[in-house]
């Protein structure tokens, strides 16, 4: 159909609906965003001036914005490592298709289907109100920890909650990877005397590199962009200590109404995401081909 005489017409016909919607509501807005980042538009008034690179220069002098990058990076690193290690452990332990394992997987996946804003205030309740109540009742020091109001702890709080949400998702991808391994390879290794950790590190892990690549990619992208969870869990607090770059740019736009400046922040952020994920993909593709 696409190699006959009217192949071009058909290609256009098939692609047009998607490309039309994609252009109108993604591509053109993105280009508009680049344009706004060079202006001082406040979102309300019709007229604005072109201010060149000054929005971008201002980004680098904005201590709160730089702090939001520092939080986002620390969180991304901590989350990516913790979530993937835990997900791998869960996957290895529940990878065989028994009825028991299927049920366990379903339980670990459940938080993924919840709305992140709801998850945020559920955990705000547990770590705030409930935690205080438990401390009053028991007096145990465990419940004295101020999960949401201590600036040294809040990073870990956010990580724990986000890991709770998505560890099941990553687990499922790792299970798919493990189940894709040719069982003959595993059996041969077992016959040769490999077991437990040796089996995992020498056979299973190298053979699931594609799943590792996917999971790390997904973890990086979602954690760099962290946003809705923070709205209800910490709202960026205490102070601005748990404000992510996304939250910072959002507030710049819809609380301070500096659309031009907020666009510049978003552009810088996009560049950072593309660089980080680009490096990750190149590195892990290389590693995959080394093994193969």
């Amino acid at each position: 159909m696409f190699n006959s005489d009217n192949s071009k017409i058909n290609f256009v016909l098939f692609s047009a609906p998607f490309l039309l919607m994609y252009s109108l509501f993604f591509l053109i807005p993105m280009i508009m965003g680049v344009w706004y980042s060079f202006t001082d538009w406040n979102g309300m008034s019709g007229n604005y001036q072109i201010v060149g690179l000054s929005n971008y220069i201002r980004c680098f002098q904005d201590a709160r914005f730089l702090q939001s990058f520092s939080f986002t990076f620390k969180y991304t690193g901590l989350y990516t490592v913790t979530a993937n290690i835990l997900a791998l452990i869960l996957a290895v332990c529940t990878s065989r298709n028994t009825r028991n394992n299927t049920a366990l997987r379903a339980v670990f996946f459940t938080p993924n289907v919840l709305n992140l804003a709801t998850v945020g205030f559920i955990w705000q309740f547990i770590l705030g109100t409930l935690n205080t109540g438990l401390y009053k009742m028991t007096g145990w020091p465990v419940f004295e920890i101020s999960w949401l109001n201590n600036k040294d702890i809040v990073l870990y709080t956010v990580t724990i909650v986000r890991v709770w949400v998505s560890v099941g998702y990553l687990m499922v991808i790792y299970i798919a990877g493990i189940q894709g391994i040719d069982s003959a390879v595993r059996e041969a290794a077992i016959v040769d005397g490999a077991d437990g950790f040796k089996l995992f590190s020498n056979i299973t892990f190298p053979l699931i590199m594609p799943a590792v690549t996917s999971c790390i990619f997904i973890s990086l992208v979602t954690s760099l962009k962290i946003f809705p969870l923070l709205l209800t869990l910490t709202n960026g607090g205490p102070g601005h200590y748990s404000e992510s770059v996304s939250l910072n740019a959002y507030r710049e736009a819809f609380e301070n109404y500096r659309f031009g400046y907020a666009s510049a922040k978003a552009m810088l952020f996009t560049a950072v995401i593309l660089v980080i994920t680009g490096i990750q993909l190149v590195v892990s593709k290389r590693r995959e081909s080394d093994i193969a």
Partner: protein
Amino acid sequence: MNKRISAGMWWIVALVFISPLAIIVINSLKTFQEILLKPVELPEVLQWQNYVEVYKITNFPRVFLNTIIIIVSSVFGVVITSSLIGYALSRTKTKVSGIIFTLVLLSMMIPFQTIMIPIVRVTQLFGMRGSVFSLIPIYIGMSGAMAVLLYHGFSNGIPKTLEESSRMEGCCGLNMFFRVIFPLFKPVTATVAVLYVLQFWNDITLPMMLLTNKENTTIALSQLIFYRELVSSRWNLLLAAAVMASTPVIIFYILMQKKIIAGVMQGALKG
């Protein structure tokens, strides 16, 4: 024996893992005083009126209907547009199709903040801001990437002889696609549908930007509005609202569980 112990241990881990949800359900049935004074005890009397009150305040039926309209139309749009282009891309290997493919992938990485301001502007230009319908074309336009990948991957496995033989019978173009190819897509379409239902049900960023009228929101957004207005007070109502908003999606998950988990596996390893 050893196996039983380890299975038992895993079930303890699983129960602890899921216990926050039980805590929420239990506390949503208490009075506000009970929550503050006896957070770990069971409710003395089940306070169903928490739910009645939330139902009234959040205008639940209206908000629920809005959400359903948005989800059904957006998923329909995503399925049609991305199956067409996914199929076309798998059958054409030209420079143009390569560029299109890269553009599609790009939209998966770009943070929403990049387009949020222009999107508000675009919907104002079309006179759509504030209407629940405004979300539908935007969802179709900005979130189709994963569906395109899934359809593209599946199309690669459909033999080309099929379209050739149907061309012999005089069936071609869109007509051929919807009669011959689209029915074959059924398993991917099911995957795409369940994954996007979850995504659209839970999305909060786009509604937050566009649905400025408090009466006219989605379930996910009404949660946030409710939370902001009742902040740090009246946890009984907040928790009841959380349970009410999550129940439909939990039921959907229980019914579609196998499909959802299989969909995540396919989506990640093909993409």
